[in-house]
Structures are given as C-alpha cells and as structure tokens.
C-alpha cells in the first residue's frame, strides 16, 4: 500500500507541477500564450452542468453509480491506510523478537530433514500478536501419499519450532509433486 501511495503521490505532484507551469505561463501571457485562449470553455460548461445536476438531484443513474463507486473506493483506501502495516520482526513474547529469515531458515531446515521432502520454500509473515504465519511449500516425489506426508511434516515442524521457542500461529503446508532431478535433494 505504501508503494502504491508513493507512486500515486509522485504522479499527482508531477501533474500539479505541470499544471502550475501552464498556469504561470498563461497567467502572465508568456511566450504569446494568453489565459483567454485556453481551450477550457467546453470543460467549464460541462462541469457547470454537472454541479447544477448535483444540486438539483437530477444526475443520471450511471453518474450516481460512478460517484458511489468512487466513494466506496475512497473509503476502502482510507481504511487500508489506517490499518497499521505488518511488523517486520516476529514477536516471540515479552521483549523478544526474531527476524523472519531466522524462522524461514529454521522451518526450511526442519522440513528438509523429513525423509520424503526433496526441497522446500518458506514464506513467513510476522503478526502483531506473538507468532508468525508460515507458508511452507514442500516438494515431494510423484505418487507419494500426500496426506500422510503433510500431517507428518506439519507435526514435525510445529514440534521442532516449539522446542526452539519459535512461536507459529498458523502453519500452511502445501505439497508439490516434483521431479527429483529438478529438486534440491534427489534422495533423502
């Protein structure tokens, strides 16, 4: 959201700057440009009729829908802005934090020690409450019993992280069948 806001503000300010340059040029009759010559008559008339329509309550259905959508969009944007961003570090308890990479490394190490797992990729999101949301994608051979591997992997990862004192609030395990020739480990 912050990146989006930054891009939006840069574009907005760039637009305002260009508009400001035009206003100065036209307002002071520089380079033979005159304010009266601006082709804004049609726009001004259109805007005037739109404002009159708003005042009279005689807007078309399409215009009302567009205005309502804009209001909803603005509200969503406002709420999204008010929400505090996700913390960068995983909170473990009172005054103890670990970086997400520490949790990622640990989950990855544990997952790859499970015999059926040939490789893994881990994504960790810190939460405001203690614990992290962990998404683990493990690669296994085709034809394996995925349910058994999944439950075994889940319990092993939870157990090992608990031993290390790393709190996990949510652990999502996704198994992907892969060709052992293309995975990190061919044989466990």
């Amino acid at each position, binding site marked *: 959201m912050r990146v989006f806001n930054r891009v939006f503000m840069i574009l907005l300010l760039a637009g305002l700057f260009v508009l400001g340059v035009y206003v100065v040029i036209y307002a002071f009759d520089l380079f033979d440009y005159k304010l009266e010559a601006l082709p804004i008559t049609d726009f001004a008339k259109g805007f005037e009729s739109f404002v009159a329509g708003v005042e009279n309550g005689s807007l078309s259905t399409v215009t009302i829908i567009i205005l309502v959508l804009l209001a909803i969009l603005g509200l969503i944007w406002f709420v999204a802005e008010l929400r505090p961003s996700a913390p*960068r570090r995983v909170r473990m*308890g009172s*005054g103890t934090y*670990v*970086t997400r*990479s*520490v949790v990622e490394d640990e989950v990855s190490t544990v997952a790859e020690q499970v015999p059926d797992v040939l490789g893994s990729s881990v994504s960790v999101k810190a939460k405001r409450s203690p614990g992290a949301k962990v998404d683990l994608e493990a690669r296994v051979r085709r034809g394996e019993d995925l349910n058994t591997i999944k439950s075994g992997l889940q319990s092993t990862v939870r157990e090992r992280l608990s031993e290390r*004192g790393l709190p996990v609030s949510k652990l999502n395990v996704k198994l992907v069948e892969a060709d052992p020739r293309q995975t990190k480990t061919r044989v466990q």
Partner: protein
Amino acid sequence: MADGIELARAASIAALATEGVYSMGRGRYVAAATYEGSEKVSGVVVTPEDLEIHIVARYPLPRPIPEIAENIRERVAPEAGGRKTMVVVDDLEVADDESL
C-alpha cells in the same frame, strides 16, 4: 548503572557471554548500534526508555530462544537502569565445529 555508550558496551559484553549467542547482530533493516564520539558499539541501541540488543544465535540452538533472551536480560538488568530490554535475534550462525 551505566549510561549511553557504557551501557551499550556492558550489554554487548553480557550478551556475548551468554550461552547460545554467536555474535552481536547488526540490525536487519537499519544499523543497530550506539555511537559516541569516534566509538561505536554494534548490536546495541540505547534510548532513554529502551535497550535493544541484537544478537546472532549459535546454531544448533543450545536452548530455546526465549531462554537465551531471558538470560541476556538477567545479565544486563543491573546496568539497564530500568530500561525495557528487547532482545532481537537477527540471524542464526552455524558454529564452525558443528557438522550441519
């Protein structure tokens, strides 16, 4: 009770003496250090209310991370002057003698 750079130095020594600490961390997103004059103590940030200690933990962990953090806090407490002590594990480092 130490203050500023002295506290940072004491905290760094206490942290490094704790079992399970491999080295001081450097901060993940911004440099974690305390400066005074030409001196710099890496891995410790001292503010009037808080004391932030960044460490790199030894792997495999000899004890759970919360225990290591608590041990560091206990060691630093006499010098911290009532500051809230935060321990941040920046990274894990496999010790040289470990065959992992």
